[in-house]
Structure formats: structure tokens, C-alpha cells
């Protein structure tokens, strides 16, 4: 029950009463004012009337200076109780008669003082016709008495008005209660019961006598809204249940947060992955679980979403138990109850990151010895070489090969051999400084990279000689393998750098050569490589010079290595360039391509390759390509792809040759893709629109960044032949290939293995899930004529009969 002062009827009556009081007061005041104006005239008229009555006797008294008559006149005036003093004067101001009584002591005298003044003075000249002034009458009137009637009347008006308005207010209170408040209270009671009743009623019931009035309309309208609300609520409940189910069944963690980062809702996966209860999570902010998240970052995300850019962030979440794990966050904006919220979809990247790390580790380290492998060594070597060149100090590369290791393997078994290799690595590392690198580049081959020895050649030679001798001493001690003492020696080849333009590969080759020199000289020793330095430089100069004329002299040619599917059917070719120089003979691509890259000749050579390959494609198409044929792969060099005019160049080639780009595949290497990724994507998408497909050559040897991979419009991954080559005996290579195959599947990319040379390799690859192959096992590269023949005869692979074609 509402208290009286809160009831509508009371409020209405109160305001009505106040209004009535206000208006009534205004009317009363207006009445009093009008009355007062009239009263003022009345006051003047009253005194004037008395004076007029007594004027003639007064004139006579003044004229005749008759004091007795004057006294009678004054007495006559004083009979009016309002006059408390009167006097009659002659024309010279002499008082003929005067009378005075004390003014009244009225408690409302202040009111009279306010209205007319406490004392009112009247004076009338006494004039004998025509114009003889014989005196004057002065009269003092008591304002309190003259206004007493008016004051009494005014007080009555106010009091009666007040009483009337109070009665009116009480009457209005009752009336409003009966007509408005009571029905409303009944409706309110019904409304309260609506939500309290377990079974929801259909609405309000009409009040007796109010079916047709506004309350009836109110009930009717409310019932309509109520019904509509019921409908909406059930719809909302269904939708909410649906979305809740979607959210809960999502495999990804979903977090709903406001734009301040306060978590509003989570799904079960989020609770599971973060190891929190949902009640605990909704008390946290994104910053509590993600150190990288902040209000500023949320603002940036929101802006990106509003600008239509996808928001995908790699970050790390912190579980309740403190464990931090990598996540990929994708954000969307949703509006709930008019409030913008972030809906974050979180994918646990732990497994993927582990796989990436594992790929990286396997790609760069030798799992057996935990030493860097050839690839990492190559990277470090190149880096070291450039630093040494810049700072003009001398470093050394030591190539170590265990002597008669095969014998250990054969006698003690591969496991013992592996154990020996691991111990060898430990022993080598024990001889090195922190900044030195020891790597295992294959079998029993180790390489030591010493970045900085000295600025002086002889000092450097002495130092590296000491290192070699120390290594020989270390290896002179027996290895304890399976309770057996195994003695083994090592042959060491040393190359110093930097000298001339020797690359890392050159240095490795030099050290290798020096090592063979040691072997040749009886093992268990070391040799410096020096003699071939100038020869190598000269050879490079000759190649560069000859390469300028290679296209003009038609010395270049293309060979095509078939690519086959699991059924041995032809699925494509890879175009491979060959250079046959009149005097230099066959120059392998790995000799002249780097020089072409370096000199820029690769641009014209690349164009020549594309034109040649397109012509060949047209010829093959004219011959009739098998249904299984999908691609003619063309290798694109980094410099060629990076060239700003590459896309136009490709368009021009297509226009010139009329080739169908949908049968052309551009092979790129990983290194070409990671720099300026946005421009690369744009360029690739443009070429995609022309019909080209893309593959990544030598996959696994580069950066292997999955993040970039998923953004690139790739079609095919080519597993590097180095993994394939070792896949039979090296479990690490198998693991790498397995991972790459799984990754390609996950990214929805086709995959082909390069360098398949044996059926054993093919079988292993097949078991790992590989379905496309390329390599000598199936076919060596063939020339254009044979290519046409192969296509024309629909041959199956492996193609044993053409092995001697090249």
C-alpha cells in the first residue's frame, strides 16, 4: 500500500489545492485591491461630506469670528470617531476653535500606516462668495479607524477564501482518490501480481465502471503490449538458447567483453583453456588474462573492425595456474543492449607453435648432437663473413670428418655410432669459445666456425692452428661407448676468411677440400686451404662474362622434369634451365644463377625462360595434354619477383605467347615472400587473377612462417629434396616431412616432394601422406622433343627407359 503522500490522488489534490489557494489568493488580493481603491475614495468622500455639512456654519463662524459657533462646528466634526483632531482658523491663521482627542490604540494600526498612513490630514478653505477667504478647517483623521472596516473586510475575505479553498482541496482529494487513485491502485496491484504468479496470466482485468474510459484503454493497451512482450520474450529466449548453444559448442574459446576490457561472458572452452570458472572470468578484464591487452589496444582493434579490416592478433594468455600459452585472437564487434562489445574468438596456438618451433629446430639443428645443422651453419657463416668483411678481421672455418667412422658403425652398430657422434659433439664444444659455432652437416662431418681470430693473418693462423691441435689432442683420448673404449681420430680442413669474394659455400667447399687433403695425407691432422682462392675468382669472372651472351648465342635451353601423382600419372613439369657454353661446357645452374642474380641478368634470363616455357606449353596443348596434367612450373628468382615490372612482364609474355596461365605455376622460395608481405600478397593476387597458381619451392628450408603462409594465396608446397634425401635413414627428416604434409593439409594446400630418387623414399613419403612426387626415381629432366613425345604417348612413371636421355 502506497503511503498517502505518494498517492496520485494526494499529489493531484495537493497541486490542485495549491493552485486553488494561489489563484484564490490572487482573486482575494485583487478583490481587496479593488475594494481598497473604492475605500480610498470613500475615505475622502466621507471626510468631505462631513466638512461640507459643517462648511456653512464654519464659514459663518470664521466670518464672524464666532468662537462659540466655531466650537460647535469643531464639536460636530469630532463626533465622527475617525476624526481625532480638528481646528478652525481665521484667514490670518488664528485658531478660532480646536479640539483633540487621543488617536485610537488599534493593534492593526501598522496596517493603516501601511495603507494610508497612521494620520490623514484634510484641510478645507472657507470662502465667502465670491472670493473672500475667511478661514480654513483642518481635520486630522485616524487612519486605523478609517481603514478598520476595510481591514476587517479584507481579513474576512482572506479567511473565507482560505477556508473555501481548504474545503475544496479536501473534496478534490476525495474525488481524485475515488476516480483515479483507487482504480490505479487496483491496476498496480494487478500488475504486481502479474510477475509474482508462477503461471503468467494473459493480462489485466478491466475495472468495474472503467471499461470505456482511459483506464479501460490503458488496460487494453497494456494487455496488447503484454502479449507482444510474451511473444518477444519467448523469441528472445529461443534465440538466446540457440546462440548460447552455438557459443558453448564452439571449439574455440569465446570471450565477450565491453570496450573497457571487462569480461562479460565466456563459453565453456574459454573456461577450460584458461582453467577458470565462468564466475571468476566475468570478474576479470582482458588485461588480467592477456598482458598485451590494454584499453589502448582495444581502441585500436575497434577502429580496425569499424574500418572493415580483419583483426587477428597473436598474443599470450595467462591461465589461472600462471601458465602462459600462445593464442591467436580474432575480434568482432557486436552490439548488445545498445552497447558495443568485443566478441573475441581465441584459438590455442600452443600445439601449432610447438610444431613451428619443432620444424624450426629440426630445420636448423641436428637432433642427435643438438648442434646446428648445415642450414644454420650456412646462415651463420654468411653473417659472420659479412661482419668479418666489414671489420676486416680474420675468422676460420674448420671442417672435421671422423676417420673410419663407418667401421665403428659397422662393428658396434648404428646406435653406438650415434652415441659416438653425440660424444664427439660434446668434446668439440668443450674446445670452443662461447661465440664459436660447431655444426654437424651430415654423417660424421662437423664444421667449426670461429668468427674472429685476429686482424693479423699470421696471428690468426697460429690461433686456429692451436685450436686444431687441441681438437686432435681431445680426439686422441678414448670415447667410452657401452663400456668400451673407442679410439677415433679426426681429419681437419681449415679455410680462413674473408679473402676475395668467397661465399660461405665457397669456404665450406674450401675447408672440405682441405679436409680431404688431410685425409689424403694420412688423416688425424689438419690442412689449411689456400691455393684455390684465385682460381675460384677467375672462374666466376669468366662465367659472368659468358652469361651476358648466353641468350643471344642460344646457349640456354630448358629441360622439363615430370611431376607425377600417386598413380604414376603425369601431373606436370618443372621447367629447368640449362647452360651449355662452347668452352666452359655445361655450367650448372647453381654456378651461374647466383651470378645472374647478382648482376641483374636474371631479369632477361627469367623472361626468356617464361617465353620459352609458354611456347612449350602451347606445343603440348596442341599435342593434347592428359587430364591429369595440372601445371607447368616455372622457377622465379627472388630478384625477378621483386622487380616492380614483374606483373607487367608476365602480362606481356602471356599477350605475346597467348599461353593459358591456368596451366602455369610460378615457383617461389620462402625467402622471397617474407619481405614486404603486403606488397607480395597484392602481387600474387594480381597474378592469381590472371590464372597463375603458386608453389613454394624448397619448403622447410626457409623461414617456414605459418603466419605468413596462411595469408598468401598459395596452391602448392614443395618439400625440399634435402629432407627427402635423408628420409630413409634420418627420423628427423621424416618428422619434418610429416609435419609439412600435415601443415599443407591443414592449410588446404597441395604438396609435392622433390628429389625422390628411390622407391623406398617414395613409399615412405606415400605412408606419410604425400601424393605427388618429382625426382630421378620417376624421371630425369627431359628436353623439349622428348617432352612432346612423353605427352603424346601418355606414358606412366617411373620412366625407366629414358633415364639415359639427358
Amino acid at each position, binding site marked *: 500500500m502506497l503511503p498517502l503522500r505518494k498517492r496520485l490522488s494526494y499529489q493531484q489534490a495537493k497541486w490542485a489545492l495549491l493552485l486553488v489557494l494561489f489563484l484564490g489568493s490572487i482573486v482575494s488580493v485583487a478583490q481587496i485591491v479593488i475594494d481598497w481603491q473604492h475605500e480610498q475614495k470613500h475615505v475622502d468622500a466621507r471626510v468631505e461630506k462631513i466638512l461640507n455639512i459643517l462648511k456653512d456654519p464654519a464659514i*459663518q463662524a470664521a466670518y*464672524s*469670528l*464666532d*468662537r*462659540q*459657533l466655531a466650537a460647535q462646528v469643531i464639536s460636530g466634526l469630532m463626533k465622527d470617531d475617525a476624526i481625532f483632531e480638528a481646528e478652525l482658523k*481665521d484667514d490670518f491663521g488664528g485658531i478660532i476653535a480646536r479640539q483633540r482627542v487621543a488617536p485610537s490604540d488599534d493593534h492593526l494600526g501598522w496596517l493603516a500606516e501601511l495603507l494610508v498612513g497612521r494620520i490623514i490630514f484634510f484641510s478645507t478653505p472657507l470662502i465667502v462668495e465670491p472670493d473672500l477667504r475667511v478661514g480654513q478647517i483642518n481635520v486630522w483623521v485616524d487612519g486605523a479607524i478609517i481603514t478598520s472596516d476595510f481591514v476587517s473586510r479584507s481579513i474576512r475575505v482572506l479567511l473565507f477564501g482560505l477556508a473555501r479553498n481548504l474545503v475544496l482541496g479536501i473534496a478534490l482529494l476525495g474525488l481524485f482518490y475515488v476516480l483515479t487513485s483507487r482504480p490505479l491502485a487496483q491496476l498496480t496491484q494487478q500488475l504486481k501480481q502479474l510477475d509474482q504468479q508462477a503461471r503468467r496470466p494473459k493480462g489485466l482485468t478491466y475495472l468495474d465502471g472503467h471499461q470505456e474510459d482511459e483506464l479501460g484503454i490503458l488496460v487494453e493497451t497494456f494487455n496488447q503490449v503484454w502479449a507482444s512482450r510474451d511473444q518477444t520474450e519467448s523469441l528472445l529466449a529461443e534465440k538466446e538458447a540457440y546462440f548460447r548453444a552455438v557459443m558453448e559448442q564452439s571449439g574455440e574459446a569465446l570471450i565477450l567483453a565491453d570496450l573497457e576490457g571487462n569480461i562479460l561472458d565466456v563459453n565453456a572452452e574459454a573456461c577450460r583453456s584458461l582453467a577458470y570458472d565462468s564466475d571468476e572470468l566475468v570478474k576479470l578484464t582482458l588485461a588480467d588474462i592477456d598482458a598485451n591487452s590494454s584499453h589502448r589496444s582495444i581502441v585500436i582493434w575497434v577502429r580496425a573492425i569499424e574500418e572493415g579490416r580483419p583483426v587477428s592478433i597473436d598474443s599470450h594468455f595467462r591461465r589461472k595456474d600462471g601458465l602462459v600459452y600462445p593464442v591467436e585472437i580474432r575480434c568482432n564487434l557486436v552490439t548488445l543492449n545498445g552497447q558495443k562489445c568485443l566478441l573475441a574468438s581465441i584459438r590455442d596456438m600452443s600445439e601449432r607453435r610447438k610444431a613451428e618451433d619443432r620444424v624450426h629446430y629440426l630445420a636448423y639443428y641436428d637432433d642427435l648432437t643438438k648442434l646446428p645443422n648445415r642450414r644454420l651453419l650456412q646462415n651463420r657463416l654468411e653473417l659472420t663473413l659479412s661482419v668479418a668483411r666489414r671489420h676486416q678481421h680474420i675468422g676460420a672455418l674448420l671442417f672435421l670428418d671422423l676417420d673410419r667412422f663407418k667401421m665403428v658403425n659397422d662393428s658396434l652398430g648404428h646406435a653406438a655410432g650415434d652415441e659416438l657422434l653425440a660424444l664427439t659433439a660434446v668434446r668439440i664444444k668443450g674446445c670452443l669459445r662461447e661465440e664459436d659455432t660447431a655444426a654437424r652437416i651430415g654423417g660424421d662431418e662437423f664444421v667449426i666456425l670461429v668468427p674472429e681470430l685476429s686482424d693479423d693473418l699470421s696471428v690468426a693462423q697460429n690461433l686456429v692452428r692451436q685450436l686444431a691441435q687441441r681438437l686432435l689432442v681431445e680426439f686422441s683420448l678414448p670415447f667410452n661407448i657401452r663400456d668400451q673404449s673407442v679410439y677415433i681420430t679426426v681429419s681437419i680442413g681449415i679455410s680462413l676468411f674473408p679473402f676475395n669474394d668467397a661465399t660461405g659455400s665457397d669456404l665450406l667447399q674450401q675447408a672440405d677440400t682441405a679436409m680431404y687433403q688431410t685425409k689424403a695425407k694420412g688423416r688425424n691432422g689438419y690442412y689449411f686451404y689456400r691455393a684455390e682462392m684465385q682460381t675460384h675468382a677467375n672462374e666466376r669472372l669468366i662465367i659472368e662474362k659468358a652469361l651476358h651472351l648466353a641468350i643471344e648465342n642460344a646457349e640456354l635451353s630448358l629441360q622439363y622434369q615430370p611431376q607425377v601423382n600417386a598413380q604414376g600419372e603425369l601431373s606436370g613439369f618443372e621447367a629447368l634451365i640449362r647452360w651449355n657454353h662452347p668452352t666452359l661446357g655445361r655450367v650448372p645452374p647453381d654456378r651461374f644463377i647466383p651470378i645472374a642474380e647478382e648482376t641483374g641478368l636474371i631479369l632477361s634470363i627469367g623472361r626468356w625462360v617464361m617465353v620459352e616455357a609458354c611456347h612449350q606449353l602451347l606445343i603440348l596443348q596442341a599435342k593434347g595434354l592428359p587430364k591429369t596434367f595440372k601445371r607447368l612450373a616455372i622457377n622465379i628468382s627472388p630478384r625477378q619477383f621483386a622487380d616492380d615490372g614483374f606483373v607487367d612482364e608476365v602480362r606481356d609474355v602471356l599477350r605475346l605467347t597467348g599461353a593459358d596461365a591456368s596451366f602455369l605455376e610460378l615457383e617461389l622460395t620462402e625467402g622471397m615472400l617474407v619481405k614486404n608481405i603486403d606488397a607480395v600478397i597484392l602481387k600474387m593476387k594480381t597474378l592469381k587473377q590472371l590464372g597463375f597458381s603458386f608453389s613454394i619451392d624448397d619448403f622447410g628450408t626457409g623461414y617456414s612462417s605459418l603466419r605468413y603462409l596462411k595469408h598468401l594465396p598459395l596452391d602448392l608446397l614443395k618439400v625440399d629434396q634435402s629432407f627427402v634425401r635423408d628420409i630413409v635413414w634420418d627420423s628427423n627428416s621424416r618428422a619434418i616431412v610429416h609435419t609439412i604434409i600435415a601443415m599443407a593439409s591443414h592449410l588446404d594446400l597441395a604438396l609435392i616432394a622433390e628429389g625422390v630418387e628411390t622407391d623406398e623414399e617414395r613409399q615412405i613419403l606415400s605412408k606419410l601422406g604425400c601424393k605427388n612426387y618429382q625426382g630421378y626415381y620417376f624421371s630425369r629432366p627431359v628436353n623439349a622433343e622428348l617432352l612432346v613425345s612423353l605427352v603424346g604417348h601418355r606414358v606412366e612413371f617411373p620412366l625407366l627407359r629414358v633415364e639415359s636421355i639427358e
Partner: protein
Amino acid sequence: MPLYASLFASMLLSPFSVGQTLTLSAEHYPPYTIDVSTDTDTTNLAITNIDGKKMHAGLDIELIRHAYAVMGVDTKFKFSPWKRVMRNVRLGNILGGISCRRTKSREAFADFSNPVSQSGLAFITRSDFKGKIPQYLAGLKSLNVVIVSGYAQQSMLESRRINYSTASSLTQGLNLVQHRDYDVFFSGWEGSAYEAKRLGYLDKLVFTRPATIATNAFHVCFSKMYAESGKWRLVLNEGLEKIRIQGAMTTIKQKYGIQGKYDSMSYLAGNKN
């Protein structure tokens, strides 16, 4: 003395004074001063001027007008209540007033001309008055006495500490003694008799002359405060002397029935006093 006064008066009258009009104030007090504009009973006494307008009449007015006229001075008369006349004389508002008895109180502010006419005093009682009519002023002490306010009788009674009541006029005084509880109306003989006759009950009143009071003369009382009042008093005295010598004074007095000292008016003949 009259000779010297006459000479002095003649010396005073400069050529510029001749032809001047003097204004004197008076109260309607028949037969001495008659306001012909209000008193219809005295029309027989009225004087018509050469321009046809009536001139104020009365014994004193005609004597004074005549006296000044022989001195070459024109006169006008203005009527107002006697108290107002006396107040104006006292304050110097007017040159002088008539007809004026000589009293101590008036000497303070007025100079008196030579007597113009005479008037006796009378204790006026109703004819059916049962009490003893007094012979002396002291005899009034035991009676209800009424006098005209401001008249000379007032100072007489006050000097003798005799209680009295006042009336505003002769008419009121006569009415009071005739119709109210007043025993004696103490007033001038001739004036009262003239008014009583006008009121129609002269025969119902008894006039008794106070034994110790001589007949008083009427003068012109000149205001001491009024400029050159002394000169005009002397001129009047000279004029009066001339008309007395010429006999005009006697003629005028005969016209009003008052000829000399202690004379009663002829129409009062038959009264026991």
C-alpha cells in the same frame, strides 16, 4: 481747539488727497449703519446715488460720508461682522470701523474720532420678566445675561467679573432673551430697539437704562497700524465740525429721529424709559 484742528486738517489735505476714496468697515447696526443690500426694512432710509445705485444708509454712515464729502473726500463702506471689523482694525487691515464705542481695550489699537452720534445702553428684558430689573451693572450678577459677542458690553462685564453668555448678533441676543431662559440682554438701546421692532416684538420687551452709565457716543475707530489713519481722523473731525456748523448734522439726525444727547428715537416714544 476746533479752529486749530481745522487748520491742521486743511494743511493735511494735499491736492492729491482730494478726490480720494476712503473705505471704512461697518456692521449692520440700524439705525446707525444699515446694509441696504440685505436689510429690506430700511429701504426707506436708503440713499440712491446719482447713478441709480443704492448707497448704504444709516445715521453714522450719512454723517461720516457727509463730513468727508465736505472735505472733498469720497467714502465707501464695507460691511462685515463686528468682530471681524475690530480684528481688522487691530491688525491694521482696514482704515477704521464704525460705529464704535470707546473702550479701554480698543484704545490699545485704535484712535477715536470725535463723536459722530450717540447711543444709550439698555438692560432689555421681556415684558413678562418676573424678576427685578437691575438698575446697575452689578445687578446683573444674579441674572442670566447675554450680550453680543465682541461688543463693548463684553469688556464692561468682564471688567466687573460678571458672568454672561454671548450671542452672535443683535437678532440672536433679542431672540435669546425673548424666547429662551435669558433674563437680560445687555446691549445698545437704539440698535436693539430698531432690531426688535423689525422682529415684531418691540412691545414685548422692556428697555431699562443703567443708572450709572452715561449715554455713549459712537466714534470712528481708526487703526493705529493703518498708514495715515491719523490724518484721515483729523480730516473727519474737521468735516464733522463743518457739517455741524452748517446744520447738515442736525438735518441728518432728524431724519433718523436721533437729534441730540440722550435723545430717544421718536418712534420709541411711549416706552416707559
